[in-house]
């Protein structure tokens, strides 16, 4: 904290008990300020940062007025708290006043004896926060990643923090200094080798059915899945959301970029899914081979009021790669329906969504045929 910098620094001033609370101009602010004794920057809540700083006040017997101002610093005034640490039975906070037209407040503190009192001041400070980023390095066979997570501290609060204790929502606090307009990146979690599952996914509602009719390449989205569990070398805490960059060992002592994605918070036991890019070596072509109205039901005017449909979908799945792949195929059948025949096993995910896991050997082509009837359409 810089004593002379009123504009950017939170400023604590101890006034003699004889000094009254007049207009802002008339108030006397002492320059002999108590230094911060200890500061904690609490970043456990992603939406607000709590600063807790300790200072030693020289109090006289009787009522003391302590002036705290924060010009150029965005502090939520309603969040400011003062806690007496050494002699809570002798030192009492009487009231808090806000001087007009100033980013400041004045504490009236009563002390039974002249005393050097340590107090803790807490407040929410804007424009200082943390981000989490991830950097994964996959091995060449894509079975595991070197899992690293970085903490990025950003301080644009207007306040320089000397060496302070930084506390996240889990783990030990650590010491760090960070100045105004400074950004720091620190290695936060190095989980070593973490197993991954590679997933290819064709979603019939998201991707074109006939890639040939689309300008440009149609790729099948590829993701890595990582389980936040102990067996994976993780599972101690939730993984915060943040940007993930994925690299791969190229087998020649170098790496390539596989892609990047934004991960959401992953609670313990859940999976992190990171989309790395598209595969152009797996091709899915889907065609409707039949759509026919059946079981027509008519009113007295011979008009069809209710019918079913008989539909056949043919999906060709082709793996041009030299390696096998398990392709997740997601299909949708709206409304009430019955599957008449299907040549591959599926799992019903909800009333209208079914999912296939199709294992494709290198260079293999498979066909998925779904014959279903949708019921009671009007």
């Amino acid at each position, binding site marked *: 904290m810089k004593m002379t910098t009123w504009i950017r620094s939170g400023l604590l001033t101890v006034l003699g008990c004889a000094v009254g609370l007049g207009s802002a101009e008339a108030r006397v602010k002492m320059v002999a300020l108590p230094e911060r004794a200890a500061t904690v920057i609490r970043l456990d809540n992603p939406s607000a940062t709590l600063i807790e700083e300790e200072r030693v006040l020289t109090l006289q017997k009787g009522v003391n007025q302590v002036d705290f101002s924060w010009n150029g610093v965005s502090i939520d005034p309603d969040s400011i708290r003062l806690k007496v640490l050494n002699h809570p039975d002798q030192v009492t906070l009487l009231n808090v006043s806000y001087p007009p037209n100033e980013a400041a407040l004045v504490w009236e503190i009563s002390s039974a004896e002249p005393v050097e009192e340590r107090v803790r001041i807490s407040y929410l400070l804007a424009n200082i926060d943390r981000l989490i980023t991830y950097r994964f390095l996959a091995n060449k066979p894509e079975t595991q990643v070197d899992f690293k997570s970085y903490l990025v501290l*950003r301080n*644009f609060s207007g306040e320089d923090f000397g060496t302070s204790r930084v506390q996240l929502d889990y783990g030990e606090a650590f010491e760090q200094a960070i100045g105004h307009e400074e950004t720091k990146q620190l290695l936060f979690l190095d989980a070593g080798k973490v197993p991954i599952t590679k997933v290819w996914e064709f979603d019939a509602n998201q991707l074109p059915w006939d890639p040939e009719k689309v300008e440009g*390449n149609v790729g099948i989205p590829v993701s890595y899945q990582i389980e936040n569990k102990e067996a994976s070398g993780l599972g101690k805490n939730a993984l915060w959301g943040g940007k993930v960059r994925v690299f791969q060992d190229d087998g020649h002592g*170098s*790496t390539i970029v596989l892609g990047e994605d934004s991960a959401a918070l992953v609670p313990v036991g859940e999976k992190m899914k990171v989309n*790395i890019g598209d595969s152009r070596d797996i091709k899915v072509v889907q065609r409707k*081979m039949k759509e026919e109205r059946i079981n027509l039901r008519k009113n007295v005017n011979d008009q069809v009021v209710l019918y079913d449909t008989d539909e056949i979908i043919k999906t060709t799945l082709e793996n041009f790669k030299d390696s096998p792949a398990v392709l997740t195929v997601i299909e949708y059948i709206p409304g009430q329906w019955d599957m008449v025949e299907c040549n591959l096993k599926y799992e019903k995910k909800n009333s209208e969504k079914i999912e296939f896991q199709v294992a494709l050997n290198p260079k293999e082509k498979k066909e998925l045929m779904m014959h279903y009837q949708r019921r009671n359409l009007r």
Partner: protein
Amino acid sequence: MKKLLLTFWVMSFLVPVSGWAKMDLVTLPKRDGVQVTIYNSADLTLVRETRELTLQKGINRLQFSWANTLIDPTSLEMLPKAQADKLVIEDLTYPPRTQNLGVWTIKSQVSGKVPVEITYLTSGLDWRAFYMGTLSGDEKTMKLEGYVRVGNRSGEDYEDAQVRLIVGKVHMLDQIAELAQRQYPYGRPDVYPTSAAAPMVMDEMKEMRAPRAAMKMAMASYGGSAPKAIIKEGLSEYFLYTIEGQETVANGWAKRLPSLGPYAVPVVNLYKYEQERYGKSVVRFLSFKNDEAHKLGQTPIPGGMLRVCRTVNEAGYLSYEGQSDFKYIPVNEKVELNLGTVQNVVVEPTLMDYKIENHTFDNNRNVSGWDEVRTFKMEVKNTRPVAVTVEIQRNFPGQKWDLKSEGDCGKYEKVDFDTVKYTLELPPRSVKEFTYTLRTYQGKRVEAAKSN
């Protein structure tokens, strides 16, 4: 004029947060080696450089600056290549009121030289593939030659670099160029990231000129007698092309390098007619497969523009046949290269007969259903001196229909529930004719229709 200065300063003592200006320059290690891995699906290049640092025991601070480049500061990473167990990289700080500058804090248990590897992502380098095809006189084979063109507008000269190219679609959240121009590397809390006051933009960078020395290197960096080989290998969902040896890619310059062939690829002259897709004209395609039978199939073929000429006489003069901007072709995939519309192969459908029949009536004796019967004559002409294959696709969307074909209609295929395809082989300068009769069911007659 050196546009990018990557300076590397080593500090051997602890500097307080507010004391950046007091830094002393101890060494300025040069770049010992550099590798660039360039993507073409995104404006993205991974740069890996090795430098030898002189560290002292204790806390070392290393300053890295990248003014006038397009480096993404959030991508910076340093890894020791020796004595890694005796070095701890404690943090990377972007000091206040500075731009394009980062400072690593390294705790070292040793003194002396330590090789390190610095990686980062940059914008401004790119590559693209393009192809030249030369058809034989009989148009049964095509000499296929592929090239890559590597360009550098990054603001930095990459001298004697190992150049690698990535084929594939990488998923990115942000533009590297945008990240490179941010005033603060990770932005500010609750403030939408903005660019620096005077960012280096790509258009401005076009104006940059490579220095004479770099130009000479760029022109004459390779003294071999044969074109450089490109080593190709698959990695994850991508293909990695590594250009043999080293290249100098000076800022502002581009290089063309052979990447494929020449291969004599057997091709099929394929002509397609589909009114809904191509209009009334026939569109010419060259068809082949990326497999061994077609002298290919070792690696996927990156998408790019193919310009096709044909050898027109024994002296080897060429005629321009057309061009096709094609997509990525996986190994074993069949490809059809669209060369555009032609006049010398014609498909002419003519409605020869039209009938309405099988009316049905409701209780009020109003018409409730009927059949429409259309007979088309299809005339297919090949005016070319070479044999061709013609595919005719007909679409009957949203209707119930029956179809009967007569005459020389070639191979018939039902593509899906409302599309059919005829494939005909036509000898040089020949005409074929066939007819098809399409019955579509309307109103109540739909109930009587069989499935498509």
